């Protein structure tokens, strides 16, 4: 954060925190989990001119370039939404396509243009939509299980309206989180708009019959099992790849503290 030290350090600190908060809204398209919680984002630097650099990495050198591109693009969009930001530079590191991704996103190219030398097909919107659908299904499973736990029977669950969903008192933070995440994607996809709209519907907006809820849940479960495989692998691989955090090699960054990567020994003042 060399340049930022020239101006008000409190402002730089505040802006850095704003960037981190925005990044918390960026999810890995496939895992539907925030890239900050997955440990992908390494560091954030802001300068006086409103430039933001976001260093990030992925669990392996081989992670799909189209996913990497999506993440880099989503990072750029999320950070650019802050009013004081003039320019964003996502910087993918330690990846087979790092150069092409960084250059492409920086220049505002589409994925196909950034990888023109390999004659790639299609755009990323189809892929993005596939994974948003899966994210909806995964979040719905978590919500339905939370509703069951709260004592609702199948008939009550499928009859839940958006206003009912908002009014339920959940006993656990997990259930609260499940509601928040489900509600966000339900509204994002336009599946429920008004308080009286049905809140538990299929990914295409179709109503679900009480008698069909069990079979519906089995389908949701399969989606979750798939996504969990990737999540578990990604976390394990990222940790295995970068486990050599060495506090002696330099000061831990804000990212290290936020992601709980700093052992107590390093966190204590010397």
């Amino acid at each position, binding site marked *: 954060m060399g340049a930022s030290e020239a101006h008000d350090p409190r402002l730089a600190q505040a802006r850095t925190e704003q960037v981190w908060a925005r990044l918390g809204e960026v999810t890995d398209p*496939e895992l539907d989990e925030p890239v900050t919680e997955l440990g992908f984002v390494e560091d954030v630097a802001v300068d006086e001119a409103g430039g933001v650099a976001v260093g990030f990495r992925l669990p392996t050198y*081989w992670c*799909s370039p189209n996913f990497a591109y999506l993440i880099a693009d989503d990072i750029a969009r999320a950070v650019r939404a802050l009013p004081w930001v003039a320019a964003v530079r996502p910087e993918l590191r330690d990846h087979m396509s790092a150069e092409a991704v960084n250059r492409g996103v920086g220049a505002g190219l589409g994925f*196909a243009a950034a990888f023109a030398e390999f004659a790639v097909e299609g755009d990323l919107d189809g892929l993005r939509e596939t994974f948003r659908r899966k994210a909806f299904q995964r979040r719905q499973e978590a919500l339905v299980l939370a509703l069951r736990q709260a004592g609702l029977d199948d008939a009550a669950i499928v009859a839940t309206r958006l206003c009912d969903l908002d009014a339920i008192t959940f006993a656990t933070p997990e259930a609260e989180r499940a509601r928040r995440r489900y509600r966000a994607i339900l509204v994002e996809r336009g599946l429920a708009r008004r308080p009286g709209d049905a809140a538990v519907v299929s990914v295409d907006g179709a109503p679900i019959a009480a008698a069909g809820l069990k079979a519906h849940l089995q389908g949701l479960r399969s*989606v979750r099992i*798939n996504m969990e*495989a*990737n999540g578990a692998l990604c976390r394990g691989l990222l940790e295995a790849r970068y486990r050599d955090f060495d506090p002696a090699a330099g000061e831990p960054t804000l990212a290290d503290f936020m992601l709980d990567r700093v052992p107590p020994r390093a966190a204590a003042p010397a």
Partner: protein
Amino acid sequence: MYKTATGEEVFVIDGHTHFWDGSPENQSNIHGKQFIDCFYAYHTALSPPDMRWPKDQFEKYSAEKMYHDLFVDGPDDMAIVQSTYLTEFYKNGFNTIERNAEMAKRYQNRFIVNGAFDPRDGEKALEYIHYMKETFGIKGVKLYTAEWKGSSRGWKLTDPDAYRCLELCEKLGITNIHVHKGPTIIPLDKDAFDVADVDHVATDFQGLNFIVEHCGLPRLDDFCWIAVQETNVYGGLAVALPFIHSRPRYFAEVLSELLFWVGPDKILFGSDYAIWTPRWLVERLWNFEIPEDIRAERGVEFTEEVKRKILGLNAARLYGVDVEAQKAKLRTETVAAAAE
């Protein structure tokens, strides 16, 4: 041979093993380094701590060590050793059929050596399939559709050149087509785990068996759906199985999906040696029970009979191994070795 706590013998065929050289001396470029580093990350991330190897040993190990880990310390009776070339990354290839065959010759009756081909080689690929059949008598191949070649970053089983290769395999009796559908190298713009091409070729090549390695794990639902419809599609457990240690409940969910959709006759055990070693995997699999609620959800049973099928009998059927004859052969050899 795995011996249960009650003294029963279980015949084990390890459906997926490698004898590789990923050492720095053999690496051609940064990709070669990153490839073995990625394998090593899988190894360290999913192995129990006391099963982890030092890095240099993992990069390159001897045939003696492999034999020991699989058959002496490990419970395998036989192992299918796959060939993976990766010639863009490794000077002498990663694990070639010649290297595998040399080891198999040294340890008779233990290894089933599988070949590999790249349909992008055109006519040369067809010649190579003939060569492998004549020289090594292969009954199977391992296909790595994500392998790089020049500016190509992968191929599909449904490519016209791939069809010609598969036609030849069917004609020559190379009937077991292992397809890598899982992690590691990923084609540039494709969904890396897309299993749709398996669906097409399985329909068109009824005389071939398609063993989808890693069960297309992150696309387990698609894989299961295909396996239900195609009687010649099998699932290899490599990569899914180590979750038995780190996330047993999750492994139970995966296993119950496979048992429900794919069925106990079409699932194959594989350690993915040297990413993992078979001893702990077989021990845990044999002693594994699916929690009651998950079992009830899918109505599946994980009985000793099912475990025997997965651990060896299914692979024996695919590769024409007469289990009783093989056991007798191995017993004689063990006695002979002890007498020496």
